[in-house]
């Protein structure tokens, strides 16, 4: 089965925020809502011996997405490409998915009264195009593809990176997204829990 995910090469990522803005433009996202956010990790160490990297955060494309299994109305679903989507018409804003996502990758839009998340620009994927964040990325750090196809660009990139391919903590949800970061750039900072978007 196809599993589309975004892989980010953090050795290349220069923290320019193009992906954030391109995402908002493409999806006409309301102010206060984000699907994609760039975190600055660090600097770690003591001045002047420091390390730092940027980590763009978005839906981690889980193989077993708890956000889908907990959804009582079927609003959360996985499409033919393995992209996790929300049918906003079916969303009753019960917030179950928000609690279920281990990364806080979903955001409740109080103006529209439904939950939103990264769609991987599936409307563009369906048109044979790429997500806006991938296209605008200044350092070509983002690539998208099927992680279940060993011949895809993303699979090759992950294989080549070996131990330098990191994922966020896995609680059995099996995130497909990988962050590639070699020690030469900075050491990967393990963080036990993530909340990309605050829903308080």
């Amino acid at each position, binding site marked *: 089965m196809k599993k589309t995910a975004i892989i980010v090469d953090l050795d*290349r990522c220069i923290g320019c925020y193009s992906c954030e803005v391109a995402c908002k433009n493409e999806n006409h996202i309301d102010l*206060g809502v984000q699907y994609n956010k760039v975190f600055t990790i660090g600097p770690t160490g003591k001045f002047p011996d420091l390390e730092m990297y940027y980590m763009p955060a978005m839906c981690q494309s889980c193989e077993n997405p708890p956000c889908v299994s907990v959804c009582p109305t079927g609003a959360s679903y996985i499409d033919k490409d393995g992209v996790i989507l929300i049918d906003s018409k079916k969303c009753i804003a019960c917030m179950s998915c928000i609690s279920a996502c281990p990364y806080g990758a979903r955001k409740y839009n109080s103006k529209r009264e439904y939950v939103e998340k990264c769609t991987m620009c599936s409307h563009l994927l369906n048109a044979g*195009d790429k997500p806006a964040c991938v296209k605008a990325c200044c350092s070509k750090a983002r690539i998208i593809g099927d992680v279940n196809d060993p011949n895809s660009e993303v699979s090759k990139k992950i294989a080549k990176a070996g131990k330098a391919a990191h994922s966020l903590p896995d609680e059995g949800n099996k995130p497909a997204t990988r962050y590639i970061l070699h020690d030469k750039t900075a050491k990967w900072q393990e963080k036990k829990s993530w909340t990309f978007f605050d829903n308080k």
Partner: protein
Amino acid sequence: MERFKLNRRDFLKATAVAGTIVSVSSLTGTTLVPKAEAATQPGTKIVRTQCRNCTADCGVLAHVKDGRVIKIEGDPTFRRSEGALCPKGLSGVQALYHPNRNKYPMKRVGQRGENKWKRISWEQAIDEIAHKLMEIRAKYGAEAVMGSTGGGGNPNFYTVCRFMNSFDSPNWFEPGAAQCYMPRTLMYAHTYGLYGTLQGQNTSLGDSNGVEGYFYNDLTMKSMILWATAPSYSGPSQAGRMLAEIRARGVKTVVIDPRFTPDAAKADLWLPIRPGTDVALGLAWIRYILEHKLYDKDFVMKWTNMPYLVNTKTKYFLRESDIKKGGDSNTYVVWDTKTKSAKAMPFPYDEQLSPALEGSYKVNGVVCKPSFQLLKDRVEPWTLKKAGETCWLDPKKIEEAILIFAKNATPSNVCLGVATDQNPNSTQAAHMSAILNILVGSVEKPGAVLQRYDDKGVGGRMRSSKLRHLLSEKQLNKRLGLKEHKGMLQWWIAQPNAILDAMTYGKPYKIKAWLERSGNKLGTAANSAAWVEGMKNLELIVHFFMYPTSFTAYADYVLPAVEWLETDFPTADFNAATARVAVTHTYETVNEYWFFAQLAKRCAELGHENCKRAWDPKACAPEPPYFDTMEKTLDNWVSMLDGMTWKEYKEKAPFEYVPMKEFRRFYVYKETDPKTGKPKGFSTPSKKCEVYLESMIELGRTGKPYSPWDLPPVDVDYDALPYYLEPDESPNKAIGKKFPLVMSNGRLPYWHHTTLRNIPYLREIKPYAEIWINPVDAKKYGISQGDWVVVESARGKTHAKALVTEGEAIGCVYMERFWNPEALNTSTHGWKEMNVNVLSKNTAPFNDVVGTYTLRGYQVKVSKAPSAPKNIWTKPEQFEPWMPQETDQTKIVEL
């Protein structure tokens, strides 16, 4: 546009589209996924154009539906950006349809600062402004009329200069120039030479240089020193992107910057230097390279002026005519170690001679030294230890950095950014960096940044020319700041602080009118409050821009400028001619060039003889005169390409104007000049790369080579070699007790100068200005993460939010420029809340050559603020009133 009468929700629906022209399968059921429809709808087209939210001109594909731009994305065919588009470019649609655009010419009806306006016609605006200018000219002289430009994506740099020359006023400025790029363009022109291209002339990565790095699949470069530059922040989609490619391919980098930027984080070595001390560090680099003989001896000997003997009394080079009767006055002299005598060195080189690089020799009874020796003497005090103490760096790290640059590393490049342009060491820093590149022979070889790309003028020649010969000698001599700072002649510009003094004190004469084309001078010029004070003495203030800024509140007329999506302009992509094309037009916005042409025309009709000449092809020749329409102007600019018209040009663009192998030739200096049968050499007086600059002494004494007339000499000669000046405000001086921290600035990837602070999606990322402070200093001054901080200098105080980070050198702080458009209608007009240039230093000492004042490297103190400044927006939802709006019905303006 009249068919649209939509509210914002409808607009969002109407603009929810995808960006492909391939057929699209519809996606049912998911309402959050926008339908991929517009690009397949009738009336929708994709237009290839270019951004101008900074100076980089990245390629853009604009999706246009029924005349409305609904989406923009990067153009993958544009080679400089390869489809990348940064947050500045991505904000194009929000900027274009911003509800607060300047839409029509407006005239002030209330008091200045009340922000009460009435709409007037372009005819009325131009007529009234022209009458007032003529009245001021009659009463006070043309020099009392002053112009300015700058501030963000300046689409046509010399438009204002051209008008001022036509009006016979010598006074125009921009907040950059001596504070941005001019120190580097000047010193590289004098050291490396000045050529027909703008794409290899110097090492400023933010100004279309560093082209070799863009050919990253064909890479010979070994290392790049990012000195005072942060391309990931200042130009992510071009230089920042290029660096990601070359780092991935093993090019080593060193970053010299007090701030731990993305480029510093990815560098092999980071030197967190004390702001303002770069020249001290550079002199130590030179000393180390000379001492350890890490320079390219062959290049130094044969292709630089370093073996040439200098008469230590006159500071001028010896010429053959000085040592031999009837000798050539253009042939330089060396000390020949074989014959132990002074010998003429014919160009390019005489292998029979064995020139000394070091030593002191008596020639005709006068002490003469090779300029190599003079450089050695100059850098002698600058040991690694001394540089370490001065610059707050570890000498071992300095040495490591030098070795990355100079040891077995050729070609290696020092790429100097804007930071060193922003304090009085500006030209010395540029000179120092040029010397480093020359010493290691990183000149015109594969992988070198300094290159003579043969673009036949497509890169930067097809635009406003200065018309500088329209300015009379008498008026040029009145240029404010010129006598002292003759390096300004290269850009034909005046000194900001001398203008401010004339405005404020009426000395040496009064300034009475200000024609301003840019964003917010109160956010970019040093010591904002002093400018507001000076403006009170003006009888006429005109602001021409895309939207109102703090400056507008003090103006008498506000004129609407086109956004870049409404602009036609010829541009370049390496060897290719490319185009920014207007994809739509809103309201009564016009191109700045058209406005200034019409203003010159009206002044001519009112009897201004010089303005009349600006419309006369003969009087303007060889430059073009003004034309009635933009179309004719554009036709004229592109006619240099085989007589093309603009229509032909934009339809054909992009097209390779020069074949790549002709464009990207190496070692042009070794090519034979058909006129002489000898190598071309460099376009300097000696035809060699010049390290010792006799030409600086000449410039100070006469204004040559830039002034057509001999000008009165400066009181003290300019120095032929770089020297270090400790910052006037320094932690090592008394002022450091009251103001202990050194202030610096820098870029962030979503702002350019003071533009874009009104873009909702960008302000959502960073709604306020930050001050970066090291935990050591934060603790000392009682500041915690996220606190509002009062930042104070000898000039004034302002606010910023604390980012406590190890990524800022101890003893230094960084603050980004900012202003608050949401506070325009309050008593502050948005320039007082969090504006670092309320603090910066506009007073002497200035850089001697170009008059630079101090925007970085002055002293401040910080304390915890009781609260945030009033009237500012910090929550995303607050920016809702700035979301794109439908343009109202307006007549098409024929220009």
